């Protein structure tokens, strides 16, 4: 075979160069002919020394970057990624469908400690809570999955649950469409990177670091800060509050100011009138009613849990999503048991540093108090110490 018979002669190449002012001839310069084998030169340079030098520089820079973040208080932990969530979600598909599953938003993620639960019940639940995300996304998915026959704790953070907001709604789609390549990549990341490098965290990514510098404000554009790192995760998504949030007052205040943006900012367009808010609440409760009915028809026990919050966050929730119009209606319509922190002395008295999540030792105390109540709820009893 002669596939090179149409190779362009050096004279032709020179002609094309003159005509097109192009530095190298490509298929664009050879119409209607078989294209020849491309020529790719390697620039004359001491590439061995260059590679070595570049590698040394790279290694030094990575070392300095790691040192910087560790000095700032970061520790290596597992990435709270869609891949890690999908890995936990797959446990239900792979024979653990009869387990207790925790869904909710960041309050269930930070406040419910799996080791404590395991110590009290002998079973370590599957943690599927997603920060900034209504539980209903996962609840509906589990309701539609016959593999899931266990127990379900549904966290209710009023501003997320009753608005239907889903910051991490893409996690479910990722789980459903995850490719073998992504699974392998996540496995490699968990084995080779995440346990060893503190800088490997979404909050420390270069574009995010650059974005949050003190740039001059543009008139008319609100200077909204993105939510910062608040937690540290383990291999099975057991998560607790990052110690910087409660030991560093400035950082705690920053976290509070970020929540304050949300609490004091304008409502989203779909919730900017009382009628729209009422409609949103009704829609979300109906979603919960439908999902609960499906789950219970399959023998899955469902317990709703309203974790503690405090300060302006609590005031906001009570103002926009008052308990009588949300939580009480939810329980009445679903017929499922619920545990509201205000109803149980043992669940009260916590002081969330940034109004929304508990410190690690408080999370241990909270989980210790919560687990017996949830267990009774799963047994379809009204928890005994309810007011």
């Amino acid at each position: 075979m002669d596939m090179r018979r149409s190779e362009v002669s050096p004279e032709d190449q020179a002609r094309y160069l003159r005509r097109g002012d192009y530095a190298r001839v490509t298929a664009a310069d050879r119409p209607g002919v078989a294209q020849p084998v491309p020529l790719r030169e390697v620039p004359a340079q001491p590439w061995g020394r260059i590679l070595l030098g570049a590698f040394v520089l790279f290694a030094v820079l990575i070392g300095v970057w790691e040192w910087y973040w560790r000095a700032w208080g970061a520790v290596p932990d597992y990435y709270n990624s869609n891949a890690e969530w999908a890995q936990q979600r797959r446990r239900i598909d792979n024979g653990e469908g009869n387990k207790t599953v925790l869904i909710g938003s960041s309050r269930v993620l930070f406040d419910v400690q799996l080791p404590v639960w395991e110590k009290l019940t002998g079973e370590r639940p599957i943690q599927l809570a997603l920060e900034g995300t209504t539980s209903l996304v996962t609840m509906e998915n589990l309701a539609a999955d016959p593999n899931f026959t266990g127990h379900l704790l549904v966290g209710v953070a009023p501003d997320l649950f009753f608005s239907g907001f889903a910051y991490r709604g893409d996690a479910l789609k990722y789980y459903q469409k995850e490719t073998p390549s992504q699974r392998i990549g996540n496995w490699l990341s968990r084995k080779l990177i995440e346990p060893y490098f503190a800088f490997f965290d979404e909050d420390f990514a270069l574009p995010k670091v650059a974005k949050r510098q003190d740039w001059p404000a543009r008139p008319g554009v609100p200077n909204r800060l993105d939510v910062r790192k608040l937690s540290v995760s383990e291999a099975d998504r057991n998560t607790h509050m990052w110690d910087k949030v409660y030991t560093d007052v400035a950082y705690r205040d920053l976290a509070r100011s970020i929540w304050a943006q949300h609490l004091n900012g304008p409502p989203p367009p779909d919730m900017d009138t009382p009628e729209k808010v009422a409609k949103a609440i009704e829609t979300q409760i109906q979603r919960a009613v439908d999902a609960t009915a499906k789950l219970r028809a399959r023998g899955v026990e469902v317990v709703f849990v309203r974790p503690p919050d405090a300060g302006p966050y609590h005031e906001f929730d009570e103002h926009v999503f008052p308990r009588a119009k949300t939580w009480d209606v939810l329980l009445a319509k679903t017929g499922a048991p619920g545990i509201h922190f205000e109803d149980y002395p043992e669940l009260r008295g916590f002081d969330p540093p940034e109004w929304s999540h508990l410190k690690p030792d408080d999370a241990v105390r909270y989980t210790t108090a919560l687990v017996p109540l949830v267990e009774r709820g799963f047994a379809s009893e009204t928890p005994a110490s309810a007011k």
Partner: protein
Amino acid sequence: MVFNSLTFVAFFALVLVVHNLPLPWTWRKVNLLLASYLFYTAWNPPFVILLWISTVVDWYAAQGLVKAKRESARHAWMVLSVVANLGMLGYFKYGQFLLDNFAAMLHAAGVAYQPAPHDIVLPVGISFYTFATLAYTLDVYLRRAEPAENFLDYALFVTFFPHLVAGPIMRPTELVPQFEQPRRASADQLRFGLALMTLGLFNKVVLADGFLAPVAEKIYDAQAIPGALDAWAATLAFSGQIFCDFAGYSTTAIGAAMCLGFAMPDNFRFPYAAIGFSDFWRRWHITLSAWLRDYLYIPLGGNRHGERRTLAALMTTMLLGGLWHGASWTFVVWGGLHGVYLAAERLLRKHFNGYRPGTLALVALGLLTYALVNITWVFFRAKTFGTAWTVLGGMFGTNAAAKPILSTFFLLSVAVIVGGLVLTHWFMRARTLESVIARAHPAALCLVWGLLAFAIVIAQGEGAAFIYFQF
């Protein structure tokens, strides 16, 4: 798997090791073929069957073409190849689009018809490998090349993982001969290949995904109404994003092939320094534009049958080229606009034959070209015509209700990155990367390479897919 993933790093390291073992050349080619299938199945294993179908159909079609005694038989083999490849492409890529348009036509005629959802996943890279295999039979049909003698070489040409899913769209004559003799990269080829891969990944992970994509998303994926500054900034950001994404992929692919000892053609030649649209298309996605020219524009008559026929061939080629990018009318409009630009340029060149612009005029024409290209990017990026009109309204200052949207940081990112990109293209417009690197001081190369690699790692990309995978 995508190049910007840990999976690819591990995969590529393994492929390199096996490729450099003292094994017979056939075994090493089998390694590359199996690795390429693994590379593809890492997305969605069942779709490898489509790849096999495309491979086998064109292998036998080319054999049939050679053996055919009559012209009608040759024609039939060519038609079989075209129908099989375009049929597969049509079913998977355009099925839903055709159904939707059929239903819309019936609706317009007063017939209520709601088709069942097509619900088909688009196989990654199908547009690229069907064009590669089609080139094989069409080159044989057009008597530009003989078919490959060896099925392994041919299958490897179709499947070779650096170009498989997003190009450069290889011609058989570019790659098959490279499989005939044992190849192994020299030490310098390996090092320079790695340097190219670093450059490509920097473009993708840091510039495209890290800094430019969020700016475009803020305007194109939100409901807000942008003013002139925001609309232009977002569109310029997208122009930078799509270049860094796609040229980044091509550079990484060329580097990966070089590490294995193979040469792949340029796919970009600093297109944002183009002066005019024929120049732009000789610099942007070169392997696609050359493919469309050789297998569509020229067979449609090219410029051999008078001005009207030429313009018709040009418009048809660009409209279909637009549709190749995606099953949506917005892509057709994108292609159509480029067709109009090319036609207008052709007429203007004829009218102003003999005009030789000076340096300032050249720069002005180049900037005009870039501005007009940006108008087309609006239709490429917008998911609906509604969004496209809103952004265009902003760009032309007709959005009275517009309020500022993008922060200072976003505006600065666009100014620095896209401004730097355009200046770089102008500096490089008559140069090659290799010629500039050859003149650079080794210490500067060390510094740049180390910084690029560092930036890739600390940008912590999430393995986002390259934009052109969806095509």
